[in-house]
């Protein structure tokens, strides 16, 4: 038990250190979706039951993300060398969740919205997910079971390889799979419902863009420090690397949102990239594959507010709003090139 407590103290020290900045809270923009739903509901219980299937889609991957968040602050090689028994490791993983700020925020929102009983169910469910993650890691030996991504081909052009790398990264984040789930649900509604509401399609497309928007803050989050250095060693302007990465991102977004509404999704996506440019290049938040992307609340709020406004403008009034999004994006590309050229940007 003393060893377990020592390990927990270390995890807490690492978490507390990271709490010094808001960006380390590691929140996904989906959190804002949840907050929006909470604020918008009048009858709490009815709203909760109505939104339950939707929340499951959002919460399930989020719980997986939370489950690993704290423990992965310690290098796995080091953590595996700690002299802990298998039972202590299970306890450590279960206790790890209690150290996650995201868990308490999410739990707090649920308790406020749906009451203590549902909040306790959430904690039990989270503990179950912890156990599942632990067991899955034991079965697969820690290796990723998703080797299908190796089939993502190289794209044509000088920077086709950069697009290939970026696509593999996007496809290994849970944000993408949540967006796909939303797209499948929305498309089914569009083509299978007896009288689908046409107004709902662009809103769903926006939701898909919002689901992918946190990734736009962490375009290099899944790159190793070495590969970031490699990008800087290539004889090519920084903005071209950024453009190649953006093309991959927008390609994914367009594909997923296509059945529901391309224009609002792309408008939102362009703004999300533009506002995510600074944290992408200047913040040092490494991400983990097969987890939700952890963003910066401040930039997330900006993405949602401005992206939402411009996309709504595009939907309701004029296509000039799309031009505004393109203009904002181009400005961010110029700024990105400037940040790229500042040598310290490679130090992640």
């Amino acid at each position, binding site marked *: 038990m003393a060893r377990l407590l020592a390990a927990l103290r270390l995890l807490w020290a690492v978490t507390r250190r990271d709490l010094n900045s808001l960006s380390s809270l590691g929140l996904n923009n989906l959190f804002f979706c949840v907050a929006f739903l909470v604020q918008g509901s009048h009858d709490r219980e009815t709203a909760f039951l109505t939104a339950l299937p939707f929340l499951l889609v959002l919460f399930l991957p989020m719980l997986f993300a939370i489950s690993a968040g704290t423990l992965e602050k310690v290098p796995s090689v080091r953590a595996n060398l700690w002299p802990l028994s298998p039972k202590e490791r299970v306890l450590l993983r279960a206790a790890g969740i209690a150290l996650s700020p995201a868990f308490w925020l999410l739990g707090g929102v649920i308790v406020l919205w749906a009451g203590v009983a549902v909040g306790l169910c959430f904690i039990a469910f989270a503990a179950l997910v912890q156990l599942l993650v632990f067991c899955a890691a034991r079965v697969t030996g820690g290796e990723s079971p998703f080797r299908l*991504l*190796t089939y993502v081909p*190289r794209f044509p*052009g*000088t*920077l*086709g*390889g*950069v697009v*290939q*790398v970026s696509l*593999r*990264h996007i496809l*290994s984040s849970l944000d993408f799979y949540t967006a796909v789930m939303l797209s499948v649900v929305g498309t089914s509604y569009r083509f299978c419902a007896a009288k689908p509401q046409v107004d709902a399609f662009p809103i769903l497309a926006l939701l898909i863009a919002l689901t992918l928007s946190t990734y736009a803050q962490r375009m290099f989050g*899944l*790159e*190793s*420090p*070495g*590969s970031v*250095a*490699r990008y*800087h*060693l*290539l*004889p*090519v*302007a920084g903005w071209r690397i950024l453009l190649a990465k953006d093309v991959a991102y927008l390609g994914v977004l367009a594909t997923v949102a296509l059945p529901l509404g391309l224009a609002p999704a792309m408008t939102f996506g362009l703004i999300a990239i533009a506002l995510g440019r600074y944290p992408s290049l200047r913040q040092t938040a490494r991400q983990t594959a097969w987890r939700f992307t952890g963003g910066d609340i401040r930039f997330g709020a900006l993405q949602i507010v401005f992206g939402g406004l411009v996309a709504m403008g595009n939907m309701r009034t004029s296509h000039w709003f799309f031009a505004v999004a393109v203009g904002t994006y181009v400005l961010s590309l110029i700024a990105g090139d400037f940040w790229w*050229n500042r*040598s310290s940007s*490679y130090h992640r």
Partner: protein
Amino acid sequence: MMIHCRNVTKSYGGRVAVNDVTFTVSSGICGLLGANGAGKSTLLKILTGLLTADEGTVTIAGHDIAAKPAVVKQLIGVVPEEIGLFESLSIAENLHLVGPIYRLSAKKTEMRTSELLELLGLSSSRDKPVSECSYGMRKKTALAMALLHNPGVLLLDEPFEGIDPSSSRTILRVLRAAARQGTAILLTSHILPLMETLASRVLILKRGKLVWDSALEPSQIFTSETYFRFVDDAPTKELTWLGS
């Protein structure tokens, strides 16, 4: 091609990592030695454009790295300290990514990739994801990436670290052949016997300062003893509790 480094200084906070270093390498193999933290990797990062010097200038083949970074990066091949591979790609895909950026056609990239991987004993692993490769395989892949576009200058940070003996011999042969063709090579290593035989010139850094340059003292041949003369001796204190 020539590497020219003049009065280069770099500090991190208040600590001077590289202190007024000046040297020129016109051709051949030049070894850059020093203890951990002496400033070797920082200096290499400045030479490759990954870091900007606080003071001083670096030119490669007459081009200032600060003024024309893209031109210089086209001329150099680098094995960086972090190795610098794309983990989600296979060994061959890593080379295919960089080939076209160095203006090689797809056909030429593939041809050179096959030759390099065969030479370095990586042919059978060419489709293996880098994330599953051993340290030595990664290092060899990084070396293949550095050689792919036939650069005029090679800047290699610990190219022999983690490499098996037979591959080391191959790399030695490749580097010597490149040097004979006029490639300027600057490499760091902690393997002193290797440096004795490989490097035609040796630079020793101590706490960021260039304390010995064999080109300035042609009467002295570099040996391991030369290194220990300039670098602090390791502490000899014994740990009485170890193994008790």
